[in-house]
């Protein structure tokens, strides 16, 4: 049986002096191992991988070219994405300061973006232009909630997605209407078009016959009765901007009808 004496574990003072030199020599040895064994091994592996890659590249140059092109394309897309984001944010900030030129530029760009988004997400819906314009209106109505310190895209696409879904839902409830913002237009055409019922009906049947009630109402109030946009909007219980949109659309629809008729 082994017997250990307590003194056997006592540190010999001479070892303390020897310890630094021993550590130094171990350190030096490990450096040599790293230098002579590990580093050359790593270099060999790296060169082997490089060689294999070059061989693969040489065997399939078209793949390399395609990969390079895709990479360059991705980089360009990301750059364009960042550029768009920064530009839209700047334009909206300037618009919030009252710069109508910036706002016109922003809305013109966003019109295309909205249209593309709707085409991709909802397909070729037949009232796409209505949707685009409604989305632009929604952006206009919510412009005061955009904070330049926050990203522009989430703000924009939340509005667009919500408005588009809202419009699709409304359209699916009342598929026969031309306008998609008719919830407040229950007021009948006849209520606003003066005393002469015969004239009203002539107008109704011959000119405005193919228009939706809301479009008829907008045209009669502004073009026949002669109210201002503000007054007409109050009558129809909608905002002035919405009335302007409605009048423009009604005129567009009327032009289409007349061109078809002629």
């Amino acid at each position: 049986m082994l017997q250990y004496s307590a003194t056997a574990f006592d540190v010999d003072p001479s070892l303390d002096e020897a310890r630094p030199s021993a550590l130094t020599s171990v350190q030096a040895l490990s450096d040599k191992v790293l230098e002579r064994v590990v580093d050359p091994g790593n270099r060999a592996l790296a060169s082997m991988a490089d060689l294999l890659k070059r061989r693969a590249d040489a065997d399939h140059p078209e793949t390399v070219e395609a990969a390079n092109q895709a990479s360059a394309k991705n980089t360009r897309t990301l750059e364009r994405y960042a550029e768009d984001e920064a530009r839209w944010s700047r334009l909206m900030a300037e618009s919030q300061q009252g710069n109508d030129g910036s706002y016109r530029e922003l809305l013109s760009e966003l019109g295309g973006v909205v249209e593309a988004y709707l085409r991709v997400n909802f397909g070729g819906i037949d009232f796409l232009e209505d949707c685009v314009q409604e989305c632009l209106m929604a952006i206009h109505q919510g412009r005061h909630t955009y904070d330049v310190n926050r990203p522009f895209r989430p703000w924009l696409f939340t509005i667009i997605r919500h408005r588009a879904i809202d419009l699709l839902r409304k359209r699916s409830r009342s598929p026969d209407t031309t306008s998609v913002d008719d919830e407040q237009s229950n007021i009948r055409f006849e209520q606003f078009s003066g005393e002469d019922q015969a004239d009203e009906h002539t107008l109704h049947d011959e000119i405005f016959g193919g228009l939706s009630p809301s479009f008829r109402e907008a045209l009669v109030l502004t073009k026949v009765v002669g109210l201002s946009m503000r007054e007409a909007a109050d009558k129809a219980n909608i905002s002035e901007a919405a009335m302007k949109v409605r009048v423009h659309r009604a005129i567009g629809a009327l032009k289409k009808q007349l061109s078809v008729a002629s």
Partner: protein
Amino acid sequence: MADMTNNSSRGNLIDQLAGDIAKDHGIRVYPAARYAWSWGILAALAVIGVTAWVAPLRAGFLSDLLTLRYGIEMASGLLMALGLIVLAFRTAVPGSVSPLLVTTTLLAGILWVGMVAWGVFDPALEPSMVGKRDHCLEEVLIYSFPLAVLGGALLRRGYVLNGWLSGAIIGFVSTVIPALIMQLACMYVPMHALIYHLSPAAFVGLLGCLLGAVIPWRSSRQ
């Protein structure tokens, strides 16, 4: 032909909208964060003030807060209330509700209600009638309505997309604040807290949801 008409129509619309911008001479950006904190602080101070004015707060509630379980329970309730306040006002800014905020608030809420419910079986404090208030349920409900109306009015200045959601959250948080304060002011009996302090939040939240779905969130100026 149709494309040209559409482009011209869109161009006219853009001109009209840009014309509105020119008339505005600059607009004030909706200060969601400032509204949230102002409303939250005002709501807390008002409820504490009125609650203390109606009847004294429970004796020893500060020392109760120092006990671990009750402290965690109240802290999770406070965290939920803070999360809900921020969340409510962010619903008026499109695209600003973050999943992290929703998750944190939800977890804090589950923890709070869970701990109160756990107290029914294993109370965090010794249940007692100290601080009993005769009309704590009515107080919670009455305090919540003006807060909800004020909060709704502030939300209306933003751009609310889901009225039912904004209504539900503002209704809920308007009741959670008095409920949280009532937890300190009224007697500590967990079942009483669940029925008379916390359950009104579900009721007002539901009411807010229903009202939020029907009230017009856009002002005529918008």
